[in-house]
């Protein structure tokens, strides 16, 4: 495994991670994997090409292709060295035959079982990794609304959806909470599935994003949960009874993960059920206590993905079902 030079981690971040990873060996493995260059992973786009044909094409270029997850053969890793930027510049990428996506980032969508014809909302959609994945899972049927508030990020979203031929997607631009309020108020619009892949402090992305080292600060970790909770609560209002909703982040911070889930469970009572998730990677249970605050025991059903367990980035995924209207 190739190592790369990394900036220093902030002492408070290290202290918090040490509390999460109580065994010394585990904490050390975490620190070690942060120095390792992440694997190059892609997802075949079945809207344009079959897994077999793409694999053949890439192997013909001399790429060594691995398929790490038996049940998701569309997920591939490139095991040999490539020239920097080669993955993004390849003809197959330009034609939309594959999407470059970190393995852990594929997990939220894999937590759903999509059926063709469903109505889906991807609330924080840019840059489009998960929207393109959803669109492919639905074979371009049904109806997907991909929302993004930032115009700059929306352009990237539109460009990725275009390249991947996602023709069942409507792109909207509004603050996520406000969007759901409008859908509820004026249209009584309801979805079968909703993905709330919320903006977060990004602690899980340290391997691929050096800027996270300098950008991380405790203020963000403490301020974001309110926004994340509001986003979830508003999106829940447009979820059908029996519909499913995923709340995910790419951070390890319990405040933004189990802390938010704990509030959701408390607020929604028997209107909501937290659902166990089956993922193709090693996951750890959600933590039930953090900094002296005890959470609802059901948060254990959340999935924590640590980079040292699977040689991926870090992620957090939780899944819920709407049981009834209030």
């Amino acid at each position, binding site marked *: 495994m190739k190592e790369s030079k990394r900036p220093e981690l902030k002492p408070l971040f290290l202290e918090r991670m040490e509390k999460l990873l109580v065994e010394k060996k585990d904490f050390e493995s975490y620190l070690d994997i942060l120095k390792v260059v992440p694997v190059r992973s892609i997802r075949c786009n079945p809207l*344009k090409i079959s897994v077999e*044909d793409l694999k053949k094409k890439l192997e013909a270029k001399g790429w060594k292709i691995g398929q790490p997850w038996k049940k998701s053969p569309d997920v591939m890793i490139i095991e040999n060295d490539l020239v920097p930027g080669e993955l993004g*510049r390849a*003809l197959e990428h*330009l*034609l*939309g035959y594959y999407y470059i996506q970190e393995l852990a980032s594929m997990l939220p969508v894999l937590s759903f079982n999509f059926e063709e*014809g469903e109505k889906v909302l991807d609330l924080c959609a840019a840059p489009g990794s998960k929207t393109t994945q959803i669109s492919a899972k639905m074979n*371009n*049927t*049904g*109806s*997907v*609304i991909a929302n993004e508030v930032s115009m700059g990020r*929306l352009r990237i979203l*539109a*460009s990725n*959806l*275009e*390249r991947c*031929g*996602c*023709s*069942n*997607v*409507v*792109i*909207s*631009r*509004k603050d996520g909470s406000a*969007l759901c309020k*409008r*859908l509820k108020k*004026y*249209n009584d*619009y309801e979805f079968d599935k909703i993905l709330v892949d919320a903006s977060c402090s990004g602690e899980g992305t340290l391997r691929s994003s050096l800027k996270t080292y300098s950008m991380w600060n405790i203020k963000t970790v403490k301020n974001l949960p309110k926004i994340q909770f509001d986003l979830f609560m508003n999106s829940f209002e447009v979820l059908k009874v029996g519909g499913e909703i995923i709340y995910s982040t790419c951070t390890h911070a319990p405040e933004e993960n189990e802390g938010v889930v704990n509030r959701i469970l408390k607020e929604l009572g028997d209107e909501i059920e937290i659902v166990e998730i089956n993922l193709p990677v090693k996951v750890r249970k959600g933590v039930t206590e953090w900094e002296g605050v005890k959470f609802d025991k059901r948060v254990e059903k959340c999935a924590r993905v640590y980079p040292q367990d699977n040689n991926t980035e870090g992620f957090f995924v939780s899944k819920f079902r709407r049981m009834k209207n209030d």
Partner: protein
Amino acid sequence: MIDRFKIFNEKEKDDVLKMLNKQFGVTEIPGVLLSRGAERIFFYSGDLDKRGIVELEQTIPIERIGVYFGKFAEDKFRLSIEGVHLLKDQINKNIFELDKEQADLWMSGSELNIETGFKDFLIMKYGADFLGCGKASALKIGNFIPKSRRLKLKN
């Protein structure tokens, strides 16, 4: 004021299909066609019907629906690269087969100095890969590959 989406009615969609049939042998457009503004026509395959799209547009700010499909040009229809990909299983006319060198040049955004013998829109193809639509004139094939989809050639 932002233009509203215009959803093509049956006749308008049929007019596009007739053009595509004549040009490329296409027999079906498997979705809704719509436009916003003067030129660009989009293709949507989702299950929102005309009424659903209008209602949604009145409720939330929509930036885009579906993918860019193509545009009218000189009494013909010029398919986008995505338009070509959507219809590739139906296209059986005016296909121009490229060799590897030509395909690389084409995907880099360059026009091809090739005498085709006719003036028309052509579907560019290399092996099994459809590489969009070009415009043949007497001595060359004009290129419409958007910047974001261009291949960077090694010197």
